């Protein structure tokens, strides 16, 4: 393995300031919500049809 020494900068000072809450739902927020909606639709299409039976029948023996 290469015995390479890495010169690194000092660890930057951690950010302490708090970010102000944005009052209204931003365009970015709408986009994120739409993406999540699409994802949840996709989950609906692959999710086991009888969730309750599936969850009940998933039994494993304990391992390490």
């Amino acid at each position, binding site marked *: *393995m290469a015995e390479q020494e890495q010169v690194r900068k000092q660890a930057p000072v951690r950010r302490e300031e708090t970010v102000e809450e944005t009052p209204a739902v931003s365009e970015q927020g709408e986009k994120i919500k739409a993406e999540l909606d699409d994802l949840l639709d996709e989950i609906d299409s692959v999710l086991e049809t009888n969730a309750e039976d*599936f*969850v009940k029948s*998933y*039994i494993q023996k304990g391992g390490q």
Partner: protein
Amino acid sequence: MAIPKTLGIETEYGIFLRGAGESNPIAASSMLINAYLHDLATANDHQAKVGWDFEDESPGNDARGFAPLGSRPPDIETHLVNAVLTNGARYYVDHAHPELSTPECADPLSIVQYDRAAELIVERSMRAARRMLPPGQELVVYKNNSDGKGNSYGCHENYLMERQTPFGRIVAHATSHFVSRQIFTGSGKTGTEAKGLTARDVPYQLTQRADFFEEEVGLETTLKRPIINTRDEPHADATKYRRLHVIVGDANMSEVATFLKVGTTTFILSMIEDDFLPRGFALESPVQAMRQVSYDLTLRKPLRLLDGSTVTALDMQWELYERASKYASERGTSAVGGPVAGQVLERWEAVLTQLEDDPMELADQLDWVAKYRLVEGYRERNGLDWGDPRLTAIDLQYHDLRPEKSIFRKLGMQTMVTQAEIEFATVNPPRDTRAYFRGECLRRWSDQIVAANWDSLVFDIGTEPLRRVPMMEPLRGTADHVATLFEECATPKELLDRLAIGG
């Protein structure tokens, strides 16, 4: 002085035979692995099946130098399928689960590559098994750590350490890391399996495993699990090395989470060897703290220390990160993964910063965040209560390794290795550890190797007695050492003769 951390991950997978009513997990696990080996043998007509050699296994040895009364060393089940692959990995049945141990890796990025290769091997095994099963049946494998009913199975990490480091110092410092690293290593879980608690108390938690730890230090791995496991079986020269067997971690789907889990722990253990950590964060109750951190989605609840002060998991990780950064600049990175160590530090800092600002920003990097976003979104959209089986189904299916059913695969999370690198690692060993020697010998001469394990290979070249090649140094047998030798030797006999001359 800290030694280079040779690394490995062993994953026990959940397994389930669909469409057959009752399923026998041991038979299912054997079938999964045999189906894969059968496919390999068909594709590769000279590929003989090489079995595991148990000669040097002693999982009952305790790192503290004694065996506490009443503790049970694990049993080795030799009758079950147990194979060594040409990438240097071990693929076997353990405790009613299929398990795959990566080959020895020299840095955390290589671990990510071989951990993902293990998933691909399992995926191919499922496909191979489907061809052998009657219509309507299939084997399904989950890369998670619990069935949601109190049964857990592990994803263990292994780190080679120098023998002379006092075990007590490892316990003192590693415990606080294992408690606090859960904020980025967790795979997320709906509800809880701790006695006396329900989804009402813990709707969602950061990790799969925290519910299952009952002791601070111990030899057990299957009951009364300890935060620090004392199994002392280095699979290497025991006078020089120990192997820290870490059993607290979750199996991660996220490559970033696997990278950070192993990368940060590599730093902590090297700093322990070099006595570089100033204070130990002596927790009042480490076992309680494991759960407290896992149950606290705000990441803000203080943990009590023995001296009466308090600290949050995030604060602990910031202090460890800052120390690691100083360690790298003062001591170099040869013990912590070489050039990859810089990437560990950068990612560690970025993830802590985001965890502090808004953990949800990490939905494309960390498992617990990604899964939380989905179950919470689904719950809200459908007006469900926590504890609803549909949320548990999403949790389970996040870890489904069938590409078409895997919820994780739908998310397009950040990756750290390419598909080509993963593909390569399913058949080729890492070049920078002794796994190279093991894997290359198997690829060339599997029909003349009768057994293999982590620290030796046994050849049958037609003359008595069988010839055992010990491999007690994890960083010998690399491509740098033996690639030329392989080019020059046409048969294992030539290789063995050359090795004997070379001493």
